[in-house]
């Protein structure tokens, strides 16, 4: 059996600060299979983006990966040299950032940025790379690509720029695309188009996609599976349909309650009381316990490990039936 495209095991990321070491990611594990879209959802500061950056090796000092392993198609990549990592970035893992307005270098023609990336990762000649760049622009839905290729970023609209960014991310046909809030900065009308584009590209090329967002709606629309993150840990992970319809973790339940549905009445919108703890003040035990309506003694002392529940896995003591039985 072929290994998953991305496999993350017990990932830990720490930031050294004046006030001591802050742990941004603490023991995160997940897989993404070929052609699969994994949505990673959570509030800002939950560690979604840091997870993405850790996978592609762009955690800057004072941050560092302090534990765990990352495998790309079975090959361990978290301990590679900077130069080896660079060869993987853009070639085997493509990345899309949040703000298309600032992701492109304003002084370079978009064609030059594409050709530059292509020539870094392939043996294409200048003219072949240019032809490929035009094809790519056409593929991401830029009209009249042979003309637009010589345009500068500021001559494109936000949605068009994000298409260019996507073209740049997929130009070397990567196995994995990490999309970090790819639609947050865009108009609502454009968001759907970009989401559809990412979904189509993933399907057509069999690319695995890690879609980081705080928007459950986007996840529900695009993803095959979803990981719900809370203060640097995965609270719950499983197929989108199951997690949305029957969330297990109290936090995930609150989160799903917060998705407005067209049919549903406003009264069903639930709010989770309180807010996520700062990295410098994560409580012991389960980090959600101060806000959890079901918290009991154990939640304040012992940290819950993921527990299988059908297709889902949930890090919550409520589901630790084995422990309950032995206690009884």
């Amino acid at each position, binding site marked *: 059996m072929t290994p998953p495209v991305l496999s993350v095991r017990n990932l830990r990321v720490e930031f050294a600060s004046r*006030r*001591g070491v802050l742990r941004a990611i603490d023991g995160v594990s997940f897989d993404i299979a070929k052609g699969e879209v994994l949505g990673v959802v959570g509030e800002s500061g939950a560690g979604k983006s840091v997870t993405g950056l850790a996978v592609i090796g762009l955690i800057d000092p004072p941050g560092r990966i302090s534990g765990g392993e990352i495998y790309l198609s079975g090959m361990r990549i978290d301990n590679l040299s900077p130069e080896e990592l660079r060869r993987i970035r853009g070639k085997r893992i493509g990345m899309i950032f949040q703000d298309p307005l600032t992701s492109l270098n304003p002084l370079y023609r978009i064609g030059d940025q594409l050709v530059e990336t292509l020539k870094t990762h392939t043996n294409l000649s200048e003219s072949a790379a240019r032809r490929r760049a035009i094809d790519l622009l056409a593929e991401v839905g830029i009209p009249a690509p042979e003309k637009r290729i010589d345009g500068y970023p500021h001559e494109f609209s936000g949605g068009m720029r994000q298409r260019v960014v996507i073209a740049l991310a997929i130009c070397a046909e990567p196995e994995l695309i990490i999309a970090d809030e790819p639609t947050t900065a865009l108009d609502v009308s454009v968001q759907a188009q970009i989401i559809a584009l990412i979904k189509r590209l993933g399907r057509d090329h069999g690319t695995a996609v890690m879609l980081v967002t705080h928007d459950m709606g986007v996840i529900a629309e695009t993803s095959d599976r979803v990981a719900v993150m809370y203060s640097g840990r995965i609270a719950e992970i499983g197929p989108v349909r199951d997690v949305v319809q029957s969330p297990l973790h109290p936090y995930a339940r609150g989160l799903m309650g917060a998705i407005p549905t067209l049919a549903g009445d406003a009264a069903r919108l639930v709010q989770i009381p309180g807010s996520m703890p700062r990295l410098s*003040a994560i409580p012991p035990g389960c980090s959600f316990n101060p806000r959890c309506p079901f918290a009991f003694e154990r939640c304040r002392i012992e940290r819950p490990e993921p527990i299988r529940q059908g297709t889902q896995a949930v890090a919550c003591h409520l589901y630790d039936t084995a422990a309950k039985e032995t206690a009884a």
Partner: protein
Amino acid sequence: MTEALVPHSAEPDAVSAHTGSATAHLFGRIVGSDIFYSFRRSRLTMVAAAITVLFFLLAILAPFLAVQNPFDPAQLQLMNSRISPLWTADGQSPFLLGTDEQGRDVFSAILYGLRISLTVGVLGVLLAGTLGISLGLIAGYFGGAVDGLIMRIADVQLTFPAILTALLINGVVKSVFGNRLDAMSTLAVLVFAIGLSFWVQYARTVRGSVMVEKNKDYVAAAQLIGLPAHVIMIRHVLPNTMGPILVIATINLALAIITEATLSFLGSGMPDTMPSLGTLIRIGNNYLFSGEWWVVAFPGFALAALILSINLLGDWLRDALNPKLR
């Protein structure tokens, strides 16, 4: 662990709370302030401040510290000429840093030269500041054609380096009065030239803040209760610009001293009869090739140390008042 993360924010308040009189209160506020904190943190800045204060003290106390009044010809003796510094083989007491061709003690000359340099520098900065702040207030408050005129003049002047402006003003004054200006008038001309060369930055800064503050509610409120324009400007708007102005003034003091020294070095500044540091360097420059390096080296060193200290203070002040500028 969480306990240690809480910053000790109560400290400054505690200091100022115990103060009784107004001066003690002010002292408490200064000692407890963030600025003073960052001052104590930077050893280099403390050294720079100490050196700057030392230079001012030396200048003020010059008559008591100098072994002679170097500009009173009666006190100079030719037999004491060309003595090298005290620690060299030919050194003679009491001439610590040696003497020049006329038997003038270099150390005493530096002390008196420092007086002139600092006087011109401080007065020049005061004039430039007064001029710039006034014009900036006027431009910002009245706007329109007045603003346009003042700012266009500022733009044009900004394209010319200050030294060129100062040199030109100096030349014009000289050509009007001829070469018969006495030393005190020359000093006044220098202050005037420096003041006119450095006003632009103050005017721009003040104008900028006035434009911002002008539209705030408290100014509208002050207008409503019938306060006259100049009262609003001086009492309410001006204090808001004092931080940046202090930074500009500090850095300008260094520039003004450099400009005065340069003018004097070029022969368009203080005359030999009442020399500033720049004049001393020009005089000393003539002895460069005859081996009497100390006549030029020590005034040069004093000037460099003075300017470097003031610049360090200015740099620190800018960072302390606006951490974002780092």
